[in-house]
C-alpha cells in the first residue's frame, strides 16, 4: 500500500523513466556480452561506452535541472562538481595502477615520479581503498557546494551575479588543476587506468557493468529528485524560484532551501563524474572549463528545464548531435551549438518536454472547459498563466539590481 501511495504520489512518469532505464541496464549488457559479434541486435563495444557516457551527462543535466529548473539558480559552474567527482575516481584508479606504470613505482603515480616527488601527498592518502574513494566522490563536491552555497545564499547573491561567480569558481578551479605542482596530474590529468575493483577497465564485461551501474544510478537520481520536487520542500523550492522575497516574508528560509538543493545537486553531479571517468578513460582539468559548464545548461534547456525528464532527453539528444556533427561536419558543430542556444531560448523556452507537456495541458484544459460548458452560459476558458512563468518577471528589461 505504501508503494502504491509512493508511486501515485510520484506520478506515472516515474514508472516510465525508471522502467526504461532498468530495462536498458539489463538489455544492453546482455546484448553486448551474450550475442555473437555481427548479430544485428548486438550493441557494439564502443556504443556501450558511448551510451554510458551519455547517461552520465544525463545525470549531470538532471542535477543542474534540480537547481535551475526548480530553485532558479543558474549555476554556470556545475562542471566543477562533475570534474571533482571524476578526479576522486581518477585518483582511486591511479592508485590501482600500482607498479604497472611506466616508472614502476608501486606507491607513486607516474606523473609524481616524473616531478621527482618522493612520497604521496596527504590528500592522496586513502584513495587506494574503494570505499574511501566513493566517499570522497560524494563528499568533495558536496563540501564545496556547501561552503560556496553557504556564503553565497546567505549573502543573498542572486541572479546574474550568482551565475557569474559560479563561473569564476569553476574557472579558478581549472587554473588551479592545470598547475603541475598541485599534485593532480597537471595539464595531462589522470589517465592510463588499468583496473577498477579488481576488474580490468578495458574488458567488455567491466564496460557493460559500468553502463548498467550508470543506468541504475541515473534511475536512482531520478527517483530522488522526483521525491524532492514532488514533496512539500519541492513546492517551497518552486516558490523560492518564482518569488523569493515573498517566500522569505512568509517565513520560509530560502537560503537553506537553496543550499539543500545545491548540495544534493552537487553530489549527484559528482557521482556522474565518477561514473564518467572509467568509461572515458581520462580526467583532465579541461573538464573544469567554463564552456563545458555552459553546455550542460543547453542540455537542460533543450530538454525542458523544470521537468526532470527533459534534461535527460536533452542531454542524450544534444550529445548525440555533437558526436554526429563532429564526425560529419566538424566545422559546423559550433554553429549548430550556438544556434541551438539561441533557438532554444527564443522559440523553445520550455524545451522539448516542456512544450509537449504544455500542449497536452492545453488540450486537457480546453476539453475540461468544453465539458463543463452549459448551453446558455459563455465558455469560460481557464486563465492561461503568462508564457514566461518560469522567470517570473514582466515583459520588459529589468535594470540590474
Amino acid at each position, binding site marked *: 500500500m505504501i508503494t502504491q501511495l509512493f508511486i501515485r504520489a510520484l506520478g506515472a512518469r516515474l514508472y516510465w523513466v525508471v522502467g526504461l532505464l532498468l530495462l536498458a541496464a539489463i538489455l544492453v549488457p546482455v546484448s553486448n556480452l551474450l550475442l555473437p559479434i555481427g548479430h544485428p541486435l548486438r550493441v557494439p563495444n564502443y556504443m556501450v561506452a558511448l551510451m554510458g557516457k551519455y547517461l552520465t551527462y544525463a545525470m549531470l543535466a538532471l542535477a543542474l535541472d534540480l537547481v535551475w529548473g526548480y530553485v532558479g539558480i543558474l549555476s554556470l559552474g556545475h562542471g566543477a562538481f562533475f570534474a571533482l567527482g571524476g578526479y576522486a575516481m581518477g585518483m582511486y584508479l591511479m592508485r590501482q595502477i600500482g607498479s604497472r606504470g611506466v616508472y614502476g613505482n608501486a606507491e607513486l603515480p607516474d606523473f609524481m615520479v616524473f616531478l621527482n616527488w618522493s612520497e604521496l601527498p596527504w590528500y592522496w592518502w586513502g584513495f587506494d581503498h574503494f570505499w574511501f574513494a566513493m566517499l570522497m566522490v560524494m563528499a568533495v563536491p558536496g563540501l564545496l557546494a556547501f561552503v560556496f552555497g553557504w556564503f553565497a545564499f546567505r549573502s543573498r547573491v542572486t541572479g*546574474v551575479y550568482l551565475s*557569474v561567480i559560479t563561473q569564476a569558481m569553476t574557472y579558478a578551479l581549472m*587554473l588551479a588543476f592545470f598547475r603541475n605542482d598541485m599534485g593532480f596530474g597537471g595539464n595531462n590529468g589522470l589517465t592510463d587506468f588499468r583496473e577498477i575493483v579488481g576488474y580490468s577497465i578495458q574488458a567488455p564485461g567491466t564496460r557493460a557493468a559500468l553502463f548498467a551501474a550508470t543506468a541504475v544510478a541515473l534511475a536512482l537520481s531520478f527517483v530522488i529528485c522526483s521525491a524532492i520536487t514532488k514533496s512539500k520542500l519541492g513546492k517551497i523550492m518552486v516558490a523560492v524560484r518564482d518569488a523569493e522575497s515573498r517566500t522569505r516574508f512568509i517565513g520560509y528560509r530560502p537560503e537553506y532551501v537553496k543550499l539543500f538543493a545545491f548540495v544534493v545537486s552537487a553530489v549527484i553531479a559528482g557521482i556522474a563524474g565518477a561514473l564518467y571517468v572509467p568509461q572515458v578513460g581520462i580526467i583532465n582539468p579541461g573538464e573544469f572549463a567554463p564552456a563545458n559548464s555552459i553546455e550542460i545548461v543547453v542540455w537542460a534547456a533543450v530538454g525542458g528545464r523544470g521537468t526532470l525528464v527533459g534534461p535527460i532527453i536533452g542531454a542524450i539528444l544534444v550529445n548525440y548531435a555533437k558526436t554526429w556533427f563532429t564526425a560529419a561536419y566538424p*566545422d559546423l558543430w559550433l554553429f549548430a551549438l550556438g544556434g541551438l542556444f539561441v533557438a532554444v531560448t527564443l522559440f523553445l523556452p520550455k524545451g522539448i518536454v516542456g512544450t509537449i507537456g504544455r500542449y497536452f495541458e492545453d488540450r486537457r484544459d480546453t476539453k475540461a472547459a468544453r465539458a463543463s460548458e452549459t448551453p446558455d452560459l459563455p465558455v469560460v476558458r481557464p486563465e492561461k498563466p503568462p508564457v514566461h512563468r518560469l522567470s517570473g518577471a514582466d*515583459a520588459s528589461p*529589468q535594470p540590474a539590481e
Partner: protein
Amino acid sequence: MIFTDFLRRHVMMIAVALLATCGGASAQSVEDLVRQLPEGSYSDRAEIVSQIAATGDPRAANLLDALAAGELNVVEATGQIVTLSGRGDPLDAVDALTGESIGEVAKASVERIRVNNSLRRAVRTAVGQLTLMSGDANTRMTAARAMFQAGDPDNVELLDEAIAEEQNAAVLQVMEEARAVAILRSDAEPAAFAAAVDTIAVRGDRQALGILQAALSSATADVTPTIEKGIADIQGRLALLDVGQNVWYGVSLGAVLLLAAIGLAITFGVMGVINMAHGEMVMLGAYTTFLVQNFIRVSFPELFDWSLAFALPAAFLVTGLIGIAIERGVIRFLYGRPLETLLATWGLSLIIQQAVRTTFGASNREVGNPSWMSGSFDFYGIAITWNRFFIVIFALIVFAALLLVLKRTALGLQMRAVTQNRRMASSMGIRTPWVDAMTFGLGSGIAGLAGVALSQIDNVSPNLGQGYIIDSFMVVVFGGVGNLWGTLVGAMTLGVLNKFLEPYAGAVLAKILLLVFIILFIQKRPRGLFAQKGRAVEA
C-alpha cells in the same frame, strides 16, 4: 704668465707633441712607427707606443690592443707587421694595419713582438689617451663605460686627468663612476674609499649592487661598514623601483581591463543583461584593425602610422552595428529573462567565434604597431613601453568621453533615466526600446575600440575574446553597475592587485587568489562596490 699656465695645464699633450715632432723630421705616420716596433728594448717600444698614440690615428687603438695582447708579429724578411691565425704550419697572416690577408707564412719566418708589463701599462695609458681624450664625445663615453666594466685599478690616474678636462656632464658621470670602481679595487685610503662607495651607491642599479657586493667580499674590516651601508642604500632604492614597476604594470593591466569591461558595465547597468558575446565584440574590433592595416599596407603604405586612426572609427561602427543587430534580433525578445539572455548571447558568441575561425583561420593574425608606439622609455628607473603607455591614455580618454556622453548628451540622459526606473522613464515619453538598442550598440562599439587597443599588445585570434570575458565580468561584478567610476576603480584595483600578487605567487595563483577574493567580496557587497541605489525589491 698666461703662457706658463698654458704650458702647465697641457704639459702632457705638449710633451707628446714634442716627442712626436722630435721623433722624426716630420710627424711620422703610424705605418712608419709600427715598423720600428720590433727593434730596440722594451723602453724604446714604450716610447714608440706613446708616439703612435699621439698620432691620433683611428687604427692606433686596435693596433696597440693587439700589441698588448701579444698578437703582433713581424715577418723577418720584409719587416711587415702581421697578426696570425690558424694552427700548425704554415699560418695565415693578416697585415696588422690594413687588415688584408697576405697569404701563408711559415712559422719560422715570423717573430712575435714581445711585451712586458711596463710596456703593457704604457699601451694602456696610450689607448686611454686615444679614447678617453678623443675629440668625439661618443668615443669618450664608450671608453669610460669600458673602463667602468673593467674596473682596473691602474686606470685611476688616467681617469683623474680625463675627469679634470671633461665638459660633457653625461660622460663626466660615467668617468667618475669608472674611477670609483677602480678605486674600490685598489688599496686606497678610507676617505677616498668611502667617497668611491658613495659614488657607486648613488648610481643605484643592479650593476652597482654587484660591484659593491664583490668589493665587500674582499674588503678589510674598517671599510666594511661603509660598503654595507652603500649596499643597503642601493637595495632600498631597488625595492622602491620594483614597487613602482609593479604599480605601472598594474595600471597598464587595469587600463586594459577598463577598456574591455566598460561596455559590458553600461549594457548591464541599463538593460540588466550580461552580454556573453562581449568578448567577441572585442575580437571583432581587433580583426577590423587587422583588415584596415592590411588594406593600408597594400594601398597606402605611407599611411601605416595612421592606421589606428582609421581603425578606431571603423571598429566602432562595425561592432556598434553588430551590437544593434543583436539587440533587435535576439535580445529584444528575451526581456525580463536575464538568464536566458545570458545563454542566448553565449550561443551568439559561439557562432561569431566559429564564423571568424572559418573566415580568417584559427591561427593568430599579425597586427603591427605603428612606429610611434614601438620601443620604450625610462622613467626614473622604471621601463615603460610606449604601446602600453598610449593604451592607458586611450583608456582614460574613452572613459572621459563616455562620462561626457552619459552626463551631457540627450542619449546619456535617457540611458540614465532608463537605468534608474524604466517604467517611469517610459511614462515620461522616452522610447525605451530605442534606448536599449542604442545602449547595446554603444557598449559593443566600445568593445570594438578595446579590440583595436588590445590588438597592439595581444595576439589576434578567434579566442581573443575568451581571454578577456571572465576578467570583464569580474570587473563589472566587483565594481558594481551604479556608476562608471565603479568600473574604473574596479578595473584599476583588480589590475594592481593582480600585479602585486604576481611576484609572490606566480601569475596563475595570483589570478586564482583574485577570483577567490572577488567571490568572497561579493558576499559582503552583493551588488559590487558602487551599487545602484534604490529600493526596488525583486520578485
